[in-house]
């Protein structure tokens, strides 16, 4: 969802791998579901714990150690054009902070590093603490962590339509991501969890625009999540879809496998140059 280059994983081929990998994937999906369930629980916990002083204190501590260098004292930010400059965090809302840490984009080791999807760089507990702390700097401002419990019941048809209206322009019809500017590549949503997708929609990380309740109501948000998750698991009835990157990969296959194979056939069927005496020069 958020624009981040380089691409999280170079792996763009998805459908139909060897059976073993497929099984592995299925397990992974199951795992993701479990984690996701946990994520939801965590999200709810967050709201319950937000006022807890211990959590806030812990958040302030970690913030001071890991975030303040760039984002400044109490989330006030440092000039972005200076060294180690980071944007202010006051009022960005819980969704944004949670997304950034959850997807491993933050914390960065140094400010020049580009944001990329990584495993979470801290414990869930620490993440909750930071979210609580940053939220406390401007309570009630910015998008909260969305609750998308209902996504599995959401209308796929609505999801496809809403995805095409709001998301496909940057992420592509198959959510595979593409270059959307000089420094930015829209994320491949292959590795995103439902909660991460929803958080990104609401908070608009990186160069991505944000979509509030008025533009993308809760029901549509769940539908979009449902479609992205469905897209990922959806079989390709047409066969192997290498990269699903449309006419580019199709043209490549047509030349290499189509005409390429036929050229080999032609070469075997016809007469080769070495079969006859070469005798030029009369021209």
């Amino acid at each position, binding site marked *: 969802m958020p624009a981040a280059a380089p691409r999280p994983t170079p792996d763009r081929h998805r459908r139909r791998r060897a059976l073993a990998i497929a099984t592995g994937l299925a397990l992974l999906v199951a795992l993701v579901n479990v984690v996701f369930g946990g994520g939801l629980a965590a999200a709810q916990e967050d709201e319950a714990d937000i006022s807890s002083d211990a959590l806030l204190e812990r958040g302030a501590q970690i913030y001071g150690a890991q975030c303040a260098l760039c984002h400044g004292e109490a989330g006030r930010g440092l000039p972005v054009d200076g060294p180690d400059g980071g944007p202010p965090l006051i009022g960005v809302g819980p969704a944004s902070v949670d997304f950034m840490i959850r997807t491993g984009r933050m914390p960065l080791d140094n400010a020049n590093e580009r944001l990329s999807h990584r495993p979470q760089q801290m414990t869930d507990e620490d993440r909750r603490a930071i979210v609580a702390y940053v939220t406390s700097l401007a309570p009630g401002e910015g998008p909260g962590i969305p609750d998308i419990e209902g996504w599995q019941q959401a209308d796929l048809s609505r999801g496809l339509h809403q995805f095409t209206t709001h998301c496909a*322009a940057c992420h592509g019809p198959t959510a595979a991501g593409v270059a959307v500017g000089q420094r930015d590549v829209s994320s491949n949503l292959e590795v995103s969890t439902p909660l991460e997708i929803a958080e990104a929609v609401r908070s608009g990380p990186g160069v991505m*625009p*944000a979509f509030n309740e008025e533009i993308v109501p809760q029901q549509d948000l769940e539908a979009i999540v449902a479609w992205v998750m469905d897209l990922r698991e959806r079989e390709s009835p047409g066969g192997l879809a290498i990269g699903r990157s449309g006419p580019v990969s199709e043209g490549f296959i047509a030349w290499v496998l189509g005409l390429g194979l036929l050229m080999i056939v032609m070469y075997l*069927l016809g007469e080769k140059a070495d079969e006859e005496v070469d005798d030029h020069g009369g021209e």
Partner: protein
Amino acid sequence: MAASDRRPPRTPAGGRTKADQWREQRKREDRAARWAAVSFLVAIVASLALFVVYISGGQAQLEGLTLFIAFGAVGVGLAIWVRVIVGPEEIVEDRYPMRSEDADRDAFEELYQSTMGEVTVGGRRRFLLRLLTGAGLSLGLALLIPIRSLGPGPRNELFRTEWGEGVRVVDEEGEPLRPEDISPDQVVTVFPEGATGSADSQAVLVGLRKDVPTDLRQPTVEGIVVYSKICTHAGCPVGLYRAAVGELLCPCHQSTFGVYDGAEVLSGPAGRPLPQLPIEVDREGYLVAISDFRVPVGPSFWNLTRGDGA
């Protein structure tokens, strides 16, 4: 026409007799014939398998695969047949220059002159021929007329959209929008009320950040700007919004437009900015257009700056 000559047999190697060679040749052909036969059998089996796949409900991959095997096997069989069993054969055919013999040309020219004479000789005949030519040309012109029926000529369609004074700004669902619905960095496709989905009236509404200075060409509501969504280059919807830098990007040919600078072209092949829709808030608090776009939307055309004459 063709003097056919089979390729000369290779010189017998190391003491083998003609009979040996002949037997070897036979053996090779037998082997090839067996392989060709196997290929054709495979083709038969694959074709039958295709039948089964089809009758039992069909499955695209299996259909493709059986077709591939069937035709591939036929190809292999035929290839063995022609390359091994029939074997290479070389014939030489004569070729003549493409130009006709002089005598033929002369004869035809004479024939032409004498027969054309029957049509053209004499003033009246020549006159008739000219009129016939004229009739042919006029008819040809007349037959072009139906092409004109294919579509109406452009009147002012390219200069007008469904937007106009007091027309509400609605989203894709037809819901009117209020300024407070839009927060910074929001982007939403909007239409004039009553023309949701309209191709030439589609516009993109962007929520502006408070702290970024703007340089806009048309009056607008604070924190909001609306541009035509049709790229001024080749007409694709300018669907990508890079909120952090305030750039709209067209996914077709990558023209970028600066949202805070009146959609000025920042890079890419587009020749002019996206037209901005002048907007205000009506008495009930909804966003409305002050007027239609003040310049034509979409890709440029020759009389773009001349106006529609209305």
